[in-house]
């Protein structure tokens, strides 16, 4: 169960990587964006997302007829790595590109695909993911937001929480209960609806992050009407569809590279200081990155070849171990280079330290806690 393909990038892939890298570097120099750590969650910049859409870098693997570019999973992997490594503000279109697109391609109606996918690919249409609710935490099946059938659609009441960037998004794929809760089969009766976040009855309230920044939201639904054509897949199949959606988000480079800009600066500082002993110790971090990247790319390649059923265990491992790695970088970096972490520091190293430290508690929580992931891995391993 641990045998993953190895990947040697082709010359075309290397060239594509350099193309992306040069483009991003150019825009850093132009001042289009300022690199920072954890930019895929905290850096929402619609103008930048449109720019990326213009490049053809959203919906890269999707069919051309829906505005996609029919490139490989590995190309998309390379693109994502480059965004994260430089710390580009990709948060606005992130979830639509990573989760909503694949979800609609798999379960959406032809009309939904034609309507949403091209807009997403242009970087003009952003989706939030509506899973968690107050008190649901890791127990996603305990969803209480309910949709009642009415003529031509559904009336939704309830509340979602921890919704990343809902305040800049246009729609939310929302997990709702369409039949009453059944204690014996908690996963039955759930469905996914696309809710227009500007519809009547939708209220978005910010949840300030511990730094005071605004990434998360509470989203309230008060008799919100959702037309029938905004149902994703089948009524009652929401749990299974949601799980499939989650598989796409587990093993990507965003579980390894959230604090990469800091790691880069660490190595640069050590080189500037000619600190060989420090570099020797830093090779441990590099070896962890190296190992996780092998694993993560192997999973991407396995997904490319369509062999999705063997992916669950290694994908969960990438996330569980990768996010701990991201979290450990500031803790180790400060032992090797003297620092006073400050959000407004002049020295990049101190600034990235501050960003990394303050954001790191979220790494091992978002998208499934380490504890939940380890439990899933163990159950998967034992079941073999």
């Amino acid at each position, binding site marked *: 169960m641990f045998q993953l393909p190895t990947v040697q990038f082709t010359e075309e892939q290397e060239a594509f990587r350099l193309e992306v890298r040069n483009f991003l570097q150019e825009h850093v120099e132009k001042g289009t964006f300022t690199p920072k750590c954890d930019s895929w969650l905290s850096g929402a910049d619609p103008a930048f997302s449109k720019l990326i859409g213009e490049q053809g870098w959203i919906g890269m693997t999707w069919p051309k007829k829906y505005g996609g570019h029919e490139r490989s999973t590995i190309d998309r992997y390379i693109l994502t790595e480059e965004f994260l490594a430089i710390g580009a503000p990709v948060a606005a279109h992130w979830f639509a590109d990573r989760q909503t697109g694949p979800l609609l391609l798999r379960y959406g109606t032809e009309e939904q695909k034609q309507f949403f996918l091209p807009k997403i690919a242009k970087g003009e249409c952003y989706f939030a993911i509506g899973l968690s609710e107050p008190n649901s935490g890791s127990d996603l099946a305990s969803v209480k937001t309910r949709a009642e059938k009415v003529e031509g659609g559904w009336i939704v009441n309830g509340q979602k929480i*921890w919704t990343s960037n809902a305040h800049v998004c246009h729609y939310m794929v929302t997990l709702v209960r369409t039949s009453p809760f059944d204690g014996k089969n908690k996963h039955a009766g759930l469905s996914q609806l696309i809710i227009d976040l500007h519809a009547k009855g939708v209220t978005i309230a910010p949840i300030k992050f511990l730094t005071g920044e605004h990434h998360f939201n509470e989203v309230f639904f008060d008799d919100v009407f959702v037309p029938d054509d905004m149902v994703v897949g089948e009524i009652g199949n929401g749990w299974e569809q949601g799980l499939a959606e989650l598989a796409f988000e587990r093993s990507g480079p965003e579980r390894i590279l959230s604090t990469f800009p800091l790691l880069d600066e660490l190595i640069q500082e050590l080189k500037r200081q000619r600190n060989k002993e420090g570099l020797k110790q830093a090779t441990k971090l590099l070896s962890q990155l190296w190992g996780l990247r092998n694993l993560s790319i192997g999973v991407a390649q396995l997904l490319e070849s369509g062999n999705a059923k063997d992916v669950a265990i290694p994908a969960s491992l990438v996330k569980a171990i990768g996010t701990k790695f991201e979290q450990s970088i500031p*803790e180790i970096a400060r032992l090797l280079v003297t620092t*006073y972490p400050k959000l407004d520091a002049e020295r990049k190293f101190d600034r990235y330290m501050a960003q990394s430290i303050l954001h790191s508690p979220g790494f091992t929580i*978002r998208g499934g806690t380490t504890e939940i992931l380890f439990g899933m891995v163990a159950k998967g391993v034992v079941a073999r």
Partner: protein
Amino acid sequence: MSEMKDMILEVAERMLADRVTKDVVDVLEKGDWAKDIWTLFKENGMVDVALSEEHGGAGGDLDDLLNLVRLTGKYAAPIPFAETTFANLLLETANLAAVDKIATYSLQEGLILQDDRISGTLQNVPWARYANYLVAFVKSNLGVQVALIDLGDVTIKPSCNLASEPRDTVILNNASATLSSVLSEEQILHVQSIETAFKIALMTGAIEKINDLSVQYSKEREQFGRPIHRFQLVQLQIAQLAGETAIAIAAFNNVCAAILANNYLHEIAYARIRFEDAITTVATVSHQLHAAIGTTHEYALHQYTRRLWSWRDEGTNCDFWSEHIADYLLNHDGKLWPYITKTAETVKS
């Protein structure tokens, strides 16, 4: 341990628990501070604890003061208490008169004394914008002296640490000052160790509070139909927090006892080094236990974890003490065990 200790501490804890709510701590982020709590501390003589009587002290030993500092850490009190009281101790060590207003301090290198005037820039001086005085090390060709500087007409650029506590840039340009005589190396090391003891006190308080918040949360929060403390992995987290808390408190109490016994240097050094692990574990584990709620501004956990993340890189830090101990070991013969048990070889210094 002085007899008045229990009484003072009880009064102080009641004052802090009643008044320093989450919102009061937040005032720092709005560019304000808790003047009323400061006034209360001042009126109750707490700012003068452990100062000698000739310097206007209110009685009490240094361990009483450290326990008060621990309480201000436990409640994240947004007042310059540790700073003012340490600045006064520093003045006392240098045989200068204590001051009666808000004071801050800096042990950084960076100030130069020339013709009795002081110039230089200090980064990250705690509370400088609100302080009347700065007590700082200054360097001349004679050595290191302590200077008492009036901050009245000095350039101060506000900034803050990860916890939004004021950490300002102070720019001195031929400033006048009251100067002490030159400090001995032993005196400098004494000052550095007591500053470290203050940080240990603050950190101990914050760790205690984080532990309390976490245990409480584990009882209130339910998942999969039961309180989360019933899950083995949460029990592991609770136990890890308990372990670090127990070790921190024991370390702090032993630092106090060692200061009273006047044999404190290594006790402080090892406590401070040990707190590095304690901070990483406590911050990481408590956030993981709290999951999403702990990352919100609304919940109080971050007021303590952000302070720990800030304090560990401020002042006389772990690296200083590792270096000091490594030098000590290199320059003293003998096996490890007599040194650990403080027998045969003495570790006084």
